[in-house]
């Protein structure tokens, strides 16, 4: 009896499972587990794999010469990256990427810092944004090429795409500079931008508040999209949304240490006081570090890949003529598109070959015709000459005959005359004798 019931139950379960295998209405059922399976270790596996792989992060610093980009990088990562002071007299803007290997506990970070040298120094800054945009596009292009390769190694690939652009705003206290606005507009669709107010120890608290409001309103009114810290993950939503309200961060950087109280802190010493870098009431450095490194680094990388890179890829492929759907709105696969493209290319090639052959044949015909023409002409000339020659010959012959006739005539006359003269003197003699 029991075995019969168990068998029934088994069949029921089997039926149910087979039912669920058939995707009839695509409904996912959530099942409850009877015990500990163990796939809750999946995140840990992912983490350990990525830790062994190492992380990679690329920062682009855009700002005028001397505004404090290198100092801020040194302060953020608590180390000294070698760098020389740039001069103000470059003819144009060029980018200087430097890669460093950092390690903290057991996490390896391959950090690339790209510096803009000569930005804002030229008298005519119309073209200043171009090298930056070109650099970002080149990194995307390299990744795209790697992705489209037949034999590719994406897991091994050194990703050089820029994950974050820190835009350094000069602390004028009034508003953005015109160059800042123009550059940020060109960059906002290509990279995550976080605007920063540099050298913020020159602005007092009340001025800073007004300055921040002015900057944000200018950015909004000009449609510049800066990076918003994500608020969809409940763990960090609250802190992120409060930080969003503090943008742009007013930072002070320093690698020198000053004794305050009984500690050595990183600070700048002035005759009127000491500005502590890590004091939240002095500047927003701590906020920047939290947001950039401790909380949102991974999100920045994701956004770069999912949003900016995808946009670039889509534009690029559309340019090349790929479409996602053919005229009947059926989804194309990439393979089919490839095939279609290849066929197109081959037919194109064939057509061109035909054309060329046609052209060749035509040309040959032409030259043949020309040659024939020339031959005919020559022949005609030859004939003409021959005829002339014949004419002359004939004339000459005639003349000769005439001459001969004359000569003959003359000879005859001479003979006749001679014979006459011979017989004449006899007659004379005869006459005389009579």
């Amino acid at each position: 009896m029991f075995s019969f019931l168990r068998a029934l139950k088994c069949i029921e379960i089997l039926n149910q499972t087979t039912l669920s295998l058939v995707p009839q209405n695509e409904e996912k059922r959530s099942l409850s587990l009877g015990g500990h399976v163990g796939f809750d270790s999946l995140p840990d596996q992912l983490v350990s794999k990525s830790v062994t792989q190492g992380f990679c992060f690329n920062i682009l610093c855009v700002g005028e010469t001397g505004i404090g980009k290198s100092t801020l990088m040194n302060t953020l990562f608590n180390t000294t990256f070698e760098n020389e002071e740039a001069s103000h007299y470059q003819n144009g803007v060029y980018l200087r990427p430097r890669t460093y290997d950092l390690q903290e506990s057991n996490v390896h970070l391959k950090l690339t810092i790209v510096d803009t040298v000569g930005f804002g120094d030229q008298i005519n800054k119309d073209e200043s944004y171009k090298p930056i945009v070109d650099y970002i596009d080149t990194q995307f292009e390299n990744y795209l090429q790697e992705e489209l390769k037949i034999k590719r190694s994406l897991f091994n690939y050194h990703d050089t795409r820029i994950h974050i652009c820190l835009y350094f705003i000069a602390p004028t206290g009034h508003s953005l500079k015109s160059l800042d606005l123009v550059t940020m507009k060109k960059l906002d669709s290509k990279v995550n931008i976080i605007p920063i107010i540099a050298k913020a120890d020159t602005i007092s608290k009340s001025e800073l508040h007004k300055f921040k409001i002015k900057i944000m309103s200018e950015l909004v009114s000009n449609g510049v999209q800066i990076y918003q810290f994500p608020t969809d993950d409940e763990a960090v939503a609250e802190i992120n949304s409060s930080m969003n309200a503090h943008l742009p961060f007013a930072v002070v950087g320093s690698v020198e240490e000053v004794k305050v109280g009984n500690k050595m802190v990183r600070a700048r010493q002035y005759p009127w006081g000491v500005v502590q870098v890590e004091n939240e009431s002095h500047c927003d450095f701590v906020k920047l570090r939290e947001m950039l490194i401790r909380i949102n680094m991974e999100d920045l990388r994701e956004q770069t890949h999912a949003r900016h890179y995808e946009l670039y890829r889509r534009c690029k492929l559309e340019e090349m003529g790929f479409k996602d759907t053919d005229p009947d709105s059926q989804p194309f696969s990439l393979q089919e598109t490839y095939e279609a493209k290849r066929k197109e290319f081959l037919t194109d090639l064939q057509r061109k070959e035909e054309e060329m052959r046609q052209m060749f044949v035509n040309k040959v015909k032409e030259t043949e015709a020309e040659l024939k023409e020339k031959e005919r002409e020559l022949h005609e000339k030859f004939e003409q000459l021959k005829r002339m020659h014949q004419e002359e010959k004939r004339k000459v012959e005639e003349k000769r005959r005439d001459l001969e006739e004359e000569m003959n005539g003359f000879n005859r006359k001479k003979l006749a005359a001679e014979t006459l003269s011979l017989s004449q003197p006899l007659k004379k003699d005869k006459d005389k004798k009579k």
Partner: protein
Amino acid sequence: MTTNMRYKSRIIKTEDSEDKQYVGFATLPNQVHRKSVKKGFDFTLMVAGESGLGKSTLVNSLFLTDLYKDRKLLNAEERISQTVEITKHTVDIEEKGVKLKLTIVDTPGFGDAVNNNECWKPITDYIDQQFEQYFRDESGLNRKNILDNRVHCCLYFIPPFGHGLRPVDVEFMKALHERVNIIALIAKADCLTPNETKKLKDRVRDEIERFGIKVYQFPECDSDEDEEFKQMDKELKECTPFAVIGSNTVVEARGQRVRGRLYPWGIVEVENQSHCDFVKLRNMLIRSHMHDLKDVTCDVHYENYRAHCIQQMTSKLAQDNRMDSSIPILPLPTPDAETERLIKMKDEELKRMQEMLEKMQQQMHEKDQ
């Protein structure tokens, strides 16, 4: 130290034994002083530099007034293709019976656009215009009431955020150093620690020398000045360019109300010599060298302009050797562009022909020999 005090200390005390030899012209300085007080002074100051460097704040701090009420600042978008304007503010201020008509010439929009090619042209044109106007007035018949609008001094603000002079700074100063006295200032010096200030000053001084920019030089002291003055003068010269901080607000520091900036980490006092060079700038500009600036403008820059102008005018007359030099130089009405061009062309032709003639003469001479 006001000029007042200096001259007072020079008055020879009359002693009875020298009564006979005392003529009395030692009171001339006093007479000059009295007359000048009655006449009043005027001074035109130009401020130039990118926006946001604190020019207006500094002018307010220097003259302890508020010259820039209700100023409209442009947005970044409007500034992308901004042209440079010239604005003038004139105020009459008085101190201890001495009247000063102060004109501040401002240059909003300088260096703000994305393309700043020749952004200093409106400024040089303005300065030349003032010279030209004065030249005409001076050469006119009625010279009683000449208005002197010539720019006596130009304060150029260098941003402290960089590593020294930038190309636009260099070009601007080179365009202006032969027309006006330039005093270079490092603006917003409260973002520099004392070490950084010193480094930046050395850097800027080197670059000024390297590019051959002639900034205003303080006149050498006479050897009979008192030691204190000489010392001050020396310090002043070593301190250029001045690193200044300006403030529109009054704060409480060390029990006093002073002009300053309030930060969470301390209070910057504008008039504290160890905080910035504002006091030195004020002393130099107003208290000791104001008149010297005017003199240099009149004697050097204006004379240069005038000589240049006259040369241009008389180069056409120089062809004719019979002209003697005592022709009164009247301001000729400026010929229009077309005739000027023709005249120039003819000028060059004549010069070329003259050269050829000379060459031929030389050749003939050689042949003769």
